[in-house]
């Protein structure tokens, strides 16, 4: 262990913010409560939404698979408590759009009966190959618990790259949030074990833990858990927001910069969150899927801020009630921290895999929205930008919707940390503009894709119509030509058959004239009558033919 010797590189920009962390770290992590209903969104991660594999009315047990991953970039969902599936429908989910999304709703029975998993937990994970480890991590539904929610099994696949360093992101730089801090204090050995499992899956040479220097207790706990291991470096980084940003932490620890628009894996580095490490440990050693997480409940609207184990799918409402938060006093609820979080309108929305914090602000602390003033080009935003962008320039183009120029200034490198917002003396909501520009550009790209598809389909249709017309004409011409041609009987078997049949009938007619019976011994009177009848028949026939 080389804690003090390790060099820390100073990342650019950033801010020293009021931490507000100690208010929620005075009590240990509380055990989970079982809400009456669980709302489990099918999409709690980046990638394709999971596909439900239970039906309404099914009884489910805790840890039972209820939705399977759809494709590679996806993650399965498990029931977080036992009960009955009462609906699969659209419900409010924690998302800045406040839109509803497809969810599985479970009415809990309160017994919290755990399903017997097919696989058993392994204390000796060394016997597993890395693809087996990844498969188990995938099956446990583990996604990045730091906030982004990228399926972890993908981030644990070196994919041809050589992984030099596995970094455990323990910085937790955003104000108010303390869930990782508390996890490290209470579950340090399990986290370190999870880190080693991930190291094995990645064949990483060595591990580094980046932790902000304000988390002394957590640091000590991790140090104890590491013991005398030499392949895990634990490094204290200065408490400066956004020290926990993936790229910022990588730079702080290694001095390397991940390529713009690229992944850190390309420079041999993989970064995982503390919570993810713990979930990986539970998945491998206890065969437990991801059904709960630690959430920080904090802010001036919560009487006793704290961290709490929450079953995934627990509505925010139940958490607020549990903490005795007076709904009349609540001014605003945010999911995530004050810098990068978003406002939640509906408290029926559940806690998902990526919900690390519920920040409740008392209504007396809500300030009136300040009107933003024109940009004075002071350049403060550029000074604090941790990714070395020019926010005022980006703002200029985003505001006038010149999206080509925004991209010239590398809009997509913006991590939306919000530092520029904080320092802006004109109170311009810069990040809002950047988010607006990003999502509009994505929409334009989707529109372009759609219009290209429409063009292609239209052209194919025109081609098809033309082809059909041509074929019709050709068919018509062929028919015409066939009619004109002298009918050749020998060639046409149908006609030959008809002719043969007619010939047969003719022959039959000529040979088989009806011979009248009972004509012997006729009297002359009878004979004359017959003759007369014959003559009449002949005459009738002649008349008929004549007519």
């Amino acid at each position: 262990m080389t804690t003090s010797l390790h060099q820390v590189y100073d990342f650019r920009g950033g801010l020293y913010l009021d931490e507000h962390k100690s208010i929620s770290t005075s009590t240990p992590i509380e055990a989970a409560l079982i809400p009456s209903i669980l709302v489990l969104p099918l999409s709690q991660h980046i990638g394709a939404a999971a596909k439900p594999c239970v039906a309404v009315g099914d009884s489910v047990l805790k840890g039972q698979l209820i939705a399977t991953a759809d494709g590679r970039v996806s993650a399965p969902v498990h029931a977080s408590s036992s009960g009955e599936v009462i609906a699969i429908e659209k419900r409010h989910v924690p998302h800045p759009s406040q839109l509803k999304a497809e969810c599985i709703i479970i009415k809990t029975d309160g017994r919290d009966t755990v399903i017997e998993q097919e696989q058993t937990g392994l204390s000796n994970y060394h016997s597993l190959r890395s693809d087996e480890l990844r498969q188990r991590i995938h099956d446990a539904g583990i996604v990045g618990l730091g906030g982004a929610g990228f399926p972890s099994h993908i981030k644990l696949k070196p994919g041809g790259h050589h992984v030099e360093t596995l970094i455990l992101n323990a910085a937790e730089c955003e104000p108010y949030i303390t869930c990782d801090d508390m996890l490290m204090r209470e579950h340090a050995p399990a986290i370190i074990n999870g880190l080693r499992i991930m190291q094995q899956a990645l064949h990483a040479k060595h591990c580094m833990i980046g932790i902000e220097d304000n988390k002394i207790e957590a640091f000590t706990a991790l140090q104890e858990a590491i013991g005398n291991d030499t392949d895990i470096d634990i490094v204290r980084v200065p408490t400066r927001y956004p020290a926990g940003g993936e790229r910022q932490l990588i730079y702080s620890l290694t001095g390397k910069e991940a390529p713009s628009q690229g992944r850190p894996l390309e420079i041999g580095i993989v970064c995982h969150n503390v919570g993810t490490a713990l979930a990986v440990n539970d998945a491998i050693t206890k065969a437990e899927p991801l059904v709960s997480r630690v959430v920080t409940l904090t802010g001036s609207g919560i009487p006793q801020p704290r961290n709490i184990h929450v079953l995934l799918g627990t509505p925010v409402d139940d958490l607020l009630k549990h903490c005795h938060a007076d709904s009349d006093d609540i001014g605003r609820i945010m999911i995530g921290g004050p810098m990068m979080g978003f406002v939640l309108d509906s408290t029926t929305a559940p806690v998902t895999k990526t919900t690390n914090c519920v920040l409740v602000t008392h209504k007396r602390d809500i300030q009136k929205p300040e009107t933003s003033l024109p940009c004075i080009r002071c350049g403060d935003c550029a000074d604090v930008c941790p990714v070395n962008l020019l926010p005022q320039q980006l703002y200029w183009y985003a505001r006038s919707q010149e999206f080509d120029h925004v991209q010239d200034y590398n809009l997509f490198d913006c991590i939306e940390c919000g530092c520029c917002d904080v320092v802006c003396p004109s109170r311009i909501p810069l990040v809002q503009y950047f988010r607006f520009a990003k999502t509009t550009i994505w929409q334009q790209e989707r529109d372009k894709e759609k219009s290209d598809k429409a063009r292609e389909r239209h052209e194919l249709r025109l081609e098809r119509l033309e082809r059909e017309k041509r074929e019709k004409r050709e068919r018509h011409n062929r028919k015409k030509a066939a009619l004109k041609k002298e009918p050749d009987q020998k060639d046409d078997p149908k006609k030959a058959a008809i002719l043969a049949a007619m010939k047969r009938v003719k022959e039959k007619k000529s040979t088989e004239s009806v011979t009248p019976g009972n004509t012997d011994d006729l009297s002359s009177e009878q004979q004359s009558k017959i003759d007369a009848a014959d003559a009449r028949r002949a005459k009738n026939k002649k008349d008929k033919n004549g007519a």
Partner: protein
Amino acid sequence: MLAAIITLLTIAVIFGLILGFAAIRFKVDSDPVVDKIDALLPQTQCGQCTFPGCRPYAEAIANGEVEINQCPPGGDATIVALADLLGRDILPLNPENGEVKEEKTVVIIDEEICIGCTLCIQACPVDAILGAAKQMHTVIIDNCTGCDLCIPPCPVDCIYIVPEKTSANQWQWPNPNEVVPATKAEQPS
């Protein structure tokens, strides 16, 4: 004198060959301007511009026959882009061609009412309706451009216009110019 003539002739022949080769090697089948204009049009193929599709309209623009303001689905953005490309003046959308829709729409077929007449299938410019004679028809929503051309031919009026659905991951942040921003109350000043 003769040497000069021969030299000049030789040069002429060489350049002629180069030009001739280039004409074959770098031959362009269609007018590249038409392609560029076509790329800016929204490809709804709705015919509101009075042309039977986006490409014919692009050709007409390229030939200078029509103005650039006849595409309601493209709206102002398309007019600005076309003006930019062609160096023409920006014009307001021609109201004779229709109005800009407030939101993107697609159509759906009420399958209970559909009689399977195939008239809508014949009208759809992008083959986005699936069905056969006397069989139920349905719209392939992902391919529907919202041109609404299938609506007039339907004899039983079973095609409805519905807004295009937005899922959370396709959602766009609102333009802060148009909304009052929420302040960050707990932010340290």
